[in-house]
C-alpha cells in the first residue's frame, strides 16, 4: 500500500493515525503540508524517525522546495521523489490510501 499524508503533523493527527493504522512494509509519501513531517528539527521529528524500521518514507521534492525546506535538515532515511516518482510509487504499490 502507498499511503499519502498531506497534513502538517504539528497541526493535525493525520500522520499519527497513518502510522498507527498503516500495515508494516507500507510506503508513506509526505505531500503538500505533510512534508513538514520530514523536518529533522522540532517536536514532530520522532514520530517518523522512530518508525524507520516499519515503513519506507518518501517526501515530495516540489512541495519541500515550495516551503523552503530543500536545504533544511531532514530526517535521515527519507527519500525525496518528484511527481514522476509519486506516479511510480502508485504504480508499484497495489493501492493508495490518502490520509487527509
Amino acid at each position: 500500500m502507498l499511503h499519502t499524508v498531506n497534513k502538517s503533523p504539528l497541526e493535525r493527527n493525520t500522520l499519527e493515525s497513518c502510522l498507527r493504522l498503516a500495515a508494516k512494509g507500507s510506503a508513506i509519501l509526505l505531500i503538500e503540508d505533510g512534508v513538514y513531517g520530514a523536518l529533522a528539527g522540532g517536536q514532530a521529528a520522532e514520530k517518523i524517525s522512530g518508525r524507520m524500521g516499519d515503513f519506507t518514507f518518501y517526501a515530495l521534492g516540489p512541495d519541500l522546495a515550495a516551503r523552503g525546506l530543500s536545504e533544511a535538515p531532514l530526517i535521515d532515511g527519507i527519500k525525496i521523489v518528484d511527481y514522476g516518482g509519486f506516479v511510480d510509487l502508485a504504480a508499484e504499490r497495489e493501492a493508495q490510501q490518502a490520509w487527509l
Partner: protein
Amino acid sequence: MKFGILVNEGPFTHQASDSAYQFAKAALEKGHEVWRVFFYHDGVNNGNKLSEPQADDRNLVKLWSELAAEHNVDLVVCVAAALRRGIKDDVLAPGFRISGLGQLIEAGIVGDRLVVFGD
C-alpha cells in the same frame, strides 16, 4: 497502467487539485493512461469556467480542460455535489461533463489504481 483520480477540493483553496493535476501530467508523461478524473465534494468547482485567476497565477480550470483535450481524459463532475454548489451545464468548462457518483465507483473498478487527493 490505467489510473483513476479522485479530486475532493476546488481549485485555489486547497492544494489537492494542483497535486492531482501534477500527478496526472506526470503519469501521462510516463506513458500511463489517466482514464478518468472524478470531482467530488468542493472538487466540482474545478469545472467552473467563470473562474478567472490573476494573470500571474495558474488557471487550474483551464489546465484541466487542456489536459482533457490533449490526452482524452474523462473529467466527470458529480451531479449531486455540483447541484448543491451551483455548478451546472451553463458554467461548465470544456472537457468536463456532469454525471452520477456511480462513475467514481466505476473508475475504481475499471482503473488499475484510484489515487485520491483532498483536504
